[in-house]
């Protein structure tokens, strides 16, 4: 599986970041397992420690299993002054997890992130590929309920 992804790209180091994205996006638990790192290291002919260095440097990657839906709430100044702290508190209550944790049913992982560039609609969060703006506590409940309903 990992090898198939690798083979879409030339075996040069500059493709590492893209390969890591693809591996993570296609993994059902949205993370990069250590077995995958070994495969990539061999394919690109770079040491595994280089890959771990890259992997842990960028915030979009994870080395631990995550939920089906990854919530990334913006905590940068524009969202902060619009009340992102309240949104975080509310999300923790709704989901019953702390920042960085995954719900027991494996549906959601709660993360914080830096500016998403949608500040016109602060506070903002991203769930997987979708952006949700102008958040309120009521809206959060609606959004989470809707996703839970869809399974």
């Amino acid at each position, binding site marked *: 599986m990992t090898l198939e992804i690798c083979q879409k790209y030339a075996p*040069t*180091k*500059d*493709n*590492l*970041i*893209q390969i*890591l*994205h693809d591996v993570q996006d296609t993994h059902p638990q949205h993370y990069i397992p250590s077995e995958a790192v070994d495969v990539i290291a061999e394919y*690109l002919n*770079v040491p595994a420690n*280089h890959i771990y*260095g*890259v992997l842990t*440097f*960028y*915030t*979009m*990657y994870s080395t631990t299993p995550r939920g089906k839906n990854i919530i990334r709430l913006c*905590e*940068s*100044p*524009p969202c*902060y*002054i*619009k009340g992102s702290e309240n949104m975080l508190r509310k999300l923790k209550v709704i989901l019953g997890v702390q920042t960085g944790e995954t719900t027991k049913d494996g549906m959601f992982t709660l993360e914080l*992130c*830096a*500016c*998403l*560039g*949608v*500040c*016109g*609609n*602060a506070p903002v969060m*991203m769930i997987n*590929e*979708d*952006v*949700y*703006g*102008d958040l309120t506590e009521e809206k959060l409940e609606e959004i989470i309920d809707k996703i839970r309903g869809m399974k």
Partner: protein
Amino acid sequence: MKYYRSHILVSMNETSIAAGVQNFLQNLRSELAKAELSTEINILETGPLGFFGRGICLTVYPENVNYESVKAEDIAELVSEHFLKGRPVKRLMLDSVNKFNPNFNYANRIVLRNSGIIDPEKIDDYIGAGGYVAWEKALTQMQPADIITEVKKSGLRGRGGAGFPAGMKWSFTAPLDAPQKYVVVNADEGEPGTFKDRLIMEGDPHQLLEGIMICARAIGATIAYIYIRGEYKLCISRLELAIKQAKEYGILGTNIFDSGFDLDIMIKIGAGAYVCGEETALIESLEGNRGNPRWKPPFPGVKGLWQAPTVVNNVETLANVPFIISEGADEFLKHGTPECTGTKVFTILGDVAHPGLCEVDMGTTLRTIINEYAGGMKKGFRFKAALVGGAAGVILPDRMLDVKMDFASLNQYAAVLGSGAILVMNEHQSIVDMLWSILRFFRHESCGKCSPCKNGTQQLYRLITKIKKGEGTMDDVDLMQTIAETMFNTSFCALGQSPIMAIRSAIENFRDEFIAITNK
């Protein structure tokens, strides 16, 4: 070509898609068909319309009516009242002081001249609006040296934050003899509060491509990379499409316009690191490494990507280039101030009536931008301060409202224009809180390469947290400034050199607040 009586421009961006614009359009189309208006009224899916209405936003031409927050339930009324009888639906109209001024937020469009007017997913729309004329001119009628002369003459300065003259940057790389040179586009827009590049790429991706092409020709590069944040999904797909279209038309590829010039543009995706907006860190990331900045000199213009000469430019900088080449530097010089020419795209956020973006001449005052383009303060709020330039920017109090927004004027006040983000705060918001949020951001984003930044950002966060809790003293406040100054003098890259901006401006302009909270 088919003529329509009226055009409905629908903004297709991150927020409207989240609000369900796809379904909305389907319903709108079927309602228009029912009213037998399909042949009279055209629906155009376009980029950002230039105002930040909530949810789904529409602009209707020729009457130039802006609607915001339109919902599926409103379609019937819109069709029967506006599109059939010609009576705009007042309750849905954008509530703005400038609602009857057609070009209210585009005083002088250069970068955004097509945004919200053409369909960004159709190359023919761009060509129809005069697109790729500059590229043809640059390739067939101009020598590389002519292009650089023209860009130099225009006085175009980099729009990424530092404001380095673009023509000069190119002129360092152009004469170098190297087997391979590169153009790298910095689309890793991470400065909090900034999203101008996203709007440029979403609204008019071909204009960016044209700017890249002209730059590549000027410096003799045959490969260009667009390094774009992983979060900007819509930009990525629009740019991929634009590149594909340009290749199909022979505007990009090998032997372009029979000139013998080859160029390929590729997209590289980032993975979430603020520091990668720093040009050498960005190059490291492109090479597949951690985004740690490199020592300068040598500058990327001499030794950049894979040690080859590389010009790194911001999206907005390159998006200005087609205009300069097609209309001439003199036309460009009509905008802005003598030191800072052209226009600037600002994003205005916070407690203003209409958060959004505007493109105005360099040197427009902060007051004008807030009052005329953002509709003034939100009802019931008073202006307290504006954070200008994002986290790496400065906090300006009301007595500085008449400062001109350009690189040179702001420098006089030890302030920076930065990326063009303006975050407006009301009188109830705490400066200490704001500074806390900024310093938390820097602590998170420090790459850890050099000690002053790695340790400094930690200490600054510790001190501001203590102060915020009411447990700090004025000595802590002064210590923050000392640490940030040391960081400014000793840090490896601009990230560690930045916190002093916000800290100094906050302490100097709002010392009372620090005194009050430390005396609690």
